[in-house]
């Protein structure tokens, strides 16, 4: 039925999540100076990579559970 239609943009809560991730995606919260290296990689870079993984996970979640706008009759011909 139509009520089941879900469009990411219409759910503001999703975008609060994205905003938080976006803020953390910018490396403003690290001390300046000589960085700590973990196996040759600066710690700040590892943390940013961690946040980047969270971003991809979150996108996967939103696509999976918050995007469903195709009409009933059209979804019938979907591929396997």
């Amino acid at each position, binding site marked *: 039925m139509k009520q089941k*239609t879900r469009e990411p943009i*219409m759910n503001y809560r999703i975008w609060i999540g994205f905003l938080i991730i976006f803020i953390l995606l910018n490396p*403003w919260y690290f001390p300046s100076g000589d960085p700590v290296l973990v196996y040759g990689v600066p710690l700040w870079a590892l943390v940013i990579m961690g946040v980047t993984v969270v971003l991809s996970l979150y996108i996967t979640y939103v*696509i999976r559970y918050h995007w469903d706008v*195709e009409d009933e009759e*059209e*979804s019938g011909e979907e*591929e396997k």
Partner: protein
Amino acid sequence: MELAFSGTSGILIMLFYGIIMLLIGVGTYMRNRNVHSSLEEYYLGGRGLGTMVLFFTFFATQYSGNTVIGYSAEAYRVGYANLVSIPFFIMIILVYLLFAPRMYKLSKKHNIVTPVDWLEMKFNSKAVSILAAIIMLYALGNFLLEQLIAIGQGVAGLTGGTVPYQAGVIFFIVIMVVYGWLGGMRSVAYTDTMQGIALLVGVFMLLIGTIVYFGGLPAAGDYIRTYSPENLGVPEGGGLVRWSNFLILVGIGAAVYPNAIQRIFSAKSERALKRSLTQMAWMPFVTAGVVFVIGILAYTAFPDLSVEESEQIVGMMASAIANEHIIFYIAMVLLFGGIIAAIVSTADSVLLTFSSIVSKDIYGRYINREASDNRKILVGKIVGVIAVAFLLMIAWNPPGTLYQVFVLKLEILVQVAPAIILGLYWERSHAKSVFAGMLTGALVAAIFTFAGLTPLGIFSGVWGLIINLIIYVAGSFAFGTAPAKDAVAQVDGQEATQSVR
């Protein structure tokens, strides 16, 4: 240094890849002979691309050989500050979430073929449609030029000059035009699949070879600390602003690439689109991420290169590794072809979209409304070839480094984003304000770029976008009326709005 692919082997590898692309193009044409019967068949592959092909065509459109050659050189030069290239590719998918779901649905319902079609339907304004078409054609032309230069440099660089720049460009352009001409979107998408696989495998093998022969990240970390410790530091001040600007500009700009949007239209089903976008959200780690690591690892192999020399870093590393072991030699053949193929595959989708805008939005809408689809396609193809010929002349004398060219086109293109995305949801959008915003934004972006102005460290494209949005929003509040001009668009908008609650 002696390059592994100079001489005959370089020429053979090039011919081999060229012939495979051509065969895929001919094969696709044989299977779909009615491809020239309608614009949808030719430009959107009959809206029938399934998950895998759709994924690879998104992939090949977004990641070019540039990503491999230019980004690893950039990572080598600026170090960890270039890590931003991984999240900015993911930001593109985030921006898709803003508009792809509704855009897909509308395109299917109203037979939309190009992004300008959508603007025409929404705003019903000649000014908006023509300006958007011009901006898109300009950005696409610039993008195509960049790919042409990259093909030439890639071929010349990887073969150590055995195959001259001009010969490399001409050879691959002819092949690209032939298979694109024959099969349209289907040929482009199928060759994208082959090109994407070659690139992925090749890049991975380069990474493995680099680690085996030159050492991993810990060794590279020591080298960087010795030679250029600033490359390990966290971006601060201007570097931080640059970082966030990249996330915004690339995220929005690359998502509204007309050729990327057309891939949304080409999806077979919503499910196929969702699946391929999910996969795309993870690709930056294995593409931009691997390329970044290769640039960092290059310190161990070549710790002290000039800017000029660093542009060739991938070719030098591939050569060094290929000379070590036969397995890596074969793998580097794959990489070599993969890089060239990736450039060709980005160029082909740009050219196809360029032609589609000429066919549908310029010729079909304003010059000859009565023309058959077949004729519109023909006009698009011919203008496309003329554009390629014109760009080739410029490509003979390529400007600056690749990276700077890349930023220039996004600055302009991103100005169509408000109309495309906000137009989907805001009924009050006022056509004249949309036009004024887009025009002012584009002019500001262009003037700031050419004058080298970045007030507050913010990119010219982002300034243009801010001014564009202010004019769009303020104008629409002042002059716009809630009921849309286009009844159909309104129905769609309300339907979606109401049903979500």
